C-alpha cells in the first residue's frame, strides 16, 4: 500500500473539518502510517467469499405507527445553543462568494 503523505493527511483533515498546525500534520502522518501498516495484516486473509458484517444482530427495518407526540419545546431545544436568535440557531453566513 502507498505510504500516506503529508498532503494526504491535509486532505483528510479538510474532509474531517479539523485544522492542524504543521507540527500536528507531521505527527498524524507518522501515526497514520504506523497504524495503517499494522492493519495491512488483514491482507493475509482471503475474504473473497466472505459476506461483510456491519452489525452483529440480524435486524430488519423497524417501523412504528405514525403517532403525533409532543416535541421538545423550542426553548429547551435552544437552551444549549452557542448562539440563538428569535427561536433559531444562529451561525455564520453559509452562502457567500469566495
Amino acid at each position, binding site marked *: *500500500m502507498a505510504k*500516506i503523505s503529508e498532503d*494526504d*493527511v491535509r*486532505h*483528510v*483533515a479538510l*474532509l*474531517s*473539518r*479539523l*485544522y*492542524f498546525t504543521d507540527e500536528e500534520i507531521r505527527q*498524524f502522518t507518522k*501515526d*497514520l502510517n*504506523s*497504524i*495503517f501498516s*499494522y*492493519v495491512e*495484516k*488483514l*491482507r493475509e*486473509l482471503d*475474504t473473497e467469499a*466472505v*459476506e*461483510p*458484517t*456491519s*452489525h*452483529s*444482530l440480524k*435486524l430488519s427495518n*423497524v417501523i*412504528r405507527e405514525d403517532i403525533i407526540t409532543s416535541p*421538545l419545546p423550542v426553548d*429547551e*431545544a435552544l*437552551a*444549549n*445553543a*452557542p*448562539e440563538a436568535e428569535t427561536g433559531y*440557531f444562529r*451561525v*455564520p*453566513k*453559509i452562502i*457567500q462568494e469566495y
Partner: protein
Amino acid sequence: MELHSTTAHELAPLLQKRKISSTELTKAVLERIEKVEPRVNAYVTLTPELAMRMAQDADQRLQQGNTVTPLTGIPLAIKDNMCTRGILTSCASRILHNFVPPYDATVVTKLRNAGAVFVGKTNLDEFAMGSSTENSAMKLTLNPWDFERIPGGSSGGSAAAVAAGETILALGSDTGGSIRQPAALCGVVGLKPTYGRVSRYGLVAFASSLDQIGTLVKDVEDTALLMNCIAAHDPMDSTSGNIPVPDYTTFLNHSINGIKVGVPKEYFVEGMDPVVEQAVRKAIDTLAELGAEIIEISLPHTEYAIATYYLCATAEASSNLARYDGAHYGYRSPGTDNIVDMFSKTRAEGFGKEVKRRIMLGTYALSAGYYDAYYLKALKVRTLIKQDFEQAFQQCDVIVTPTTPTPAFRVGEKTEDPLQMYLSDIFTISVNLAGIPAVSLPCGFAGSLPVGIQIMAGSFEEGKILRVAHCYEQAAGFCRSRPTL
C-alpha cells in the same frame, strides 16, 4: 463493615426492614467521597444535593412499602457519556464542556423509576476513546490500588469509584473493552451485555455497532440486580433486541457441574505478564474443581481483531462525531466568519488528540479509493471473527480468558504510542465485534494489583455467564478484597 464498602444485595434488605435509611447510606457514601475523591478523581460532576433529595424520596417509598425495588435507595454513579436531564453530560470533552441534556437516557429513566440515588457522573477517556482514562479533558483518575497507576478505561471513573467505595453501583459503556478492562484493573466486576440487551438511547455514540451500556459493581449478585433493572427492549433504540429478559438472580447459586468451559489457546500469548497468566490458570483450575469440564478451543482469527476493530470503530466514530460542529450545542470557537472556518476551528479546539486521531483514521479508511481495501475488508474479517465464536459455542457453554495481558500500567506509560495503547485491548475487543456478552471479575493479584478473568457466552446468554461467575466468585472470594485508602 462500613456502609460504603457493602453491596446492593446486602443493603437492600436492611433498607427494606428500615434497619438503615437511604439518607444515612447516601450520607456515608458522600462522606467517603469527601475523604478519598481528592486522591482518586473518579468524578467529573458530583451531585450531592440531588443525591440527598433522591435519598429522601427513596426513604418515603421504603416507608410506604409499595413500588420498592432492590435498587430503591442505593447510590449509583453514571459514566459521563450517558445523558442525564439537567445534569452536565461532558463525555470528558471540551466540546461538550457545557452540555446539559434536555432528556434522560433510557437506562437513566429506568434507574430513576427504580429509586436509585444518583451520586454523580464519572470520568472517562474523551468520548470513551481510550484504555486508561488519561484521554479525559477534565481530570486524571488514578487507580485506588496504586496511585501511580491508571484505572483502565474508558470507564475508569466508574471502576475507580466502585473500587474506592465512592458509590455502591455504577454504569459504564463498552465499545472494545471499556467496562471489562477497567473492572479487571480496579478489582471489580464489569459486565458488557450482549449488543442490543440494554438500550443505547441517550448514550453518546462512539461506534454504534459496537457500543453497549453495562454494569460496574462489587460482585456478581449486584451485577444481576442492576441488569434486572436496565436490560429491556426499548422502542427508542431500534437496535435493542425484542427478546424476553430473564430474572438474572435465578442464575445465581447453581452448581457448574458438567458445564463446558472453553479455553482458547490464542489468548495465552507471548508478552503476557506471567503473574497474570498464573492467576488465570489457577482460576481455571478452580472451575475444574467446581465440576466444570475444561476443553481447549481455538478462535483462529483472534490476531486480526485489533486491526479489524480499529478500522470499524474509527470509521463509525468519524461519522458519529461529525455532529460536533459548534452549531447546536457545546463549544463554539469565537470569532469565526464563515461556516467551514467555524466547524474546523471549533473541532480543532474542542477535541483532544486521541479523538482527532480516530476521526482522521476513520475518515481516511472511508475515503475514496480506500473504502474497499480497509473498511469493507474489516467488515469481512469481522464476519470471520463472529464465526469463530459461533463454532466455539457449539463445543462449550462459556469461554474463559484473561481480561488483560498485564495489570494496571503506570500513568504516562503508553500515552506516546497509540498502537501500544490499542494492543492493551487485545483480549476484550473480539467480544464487541461478535456482539456477545462477557464479564470480567477478580481472580487474584499481581503484587498489590488486581487481575481479572473474563467469561464470555453466546448472544443473550448472560445467565450462563452469571452462573459460572457466581459459582467461581463464591469459591475464590476475591470480590471481598478492597484497597486500603
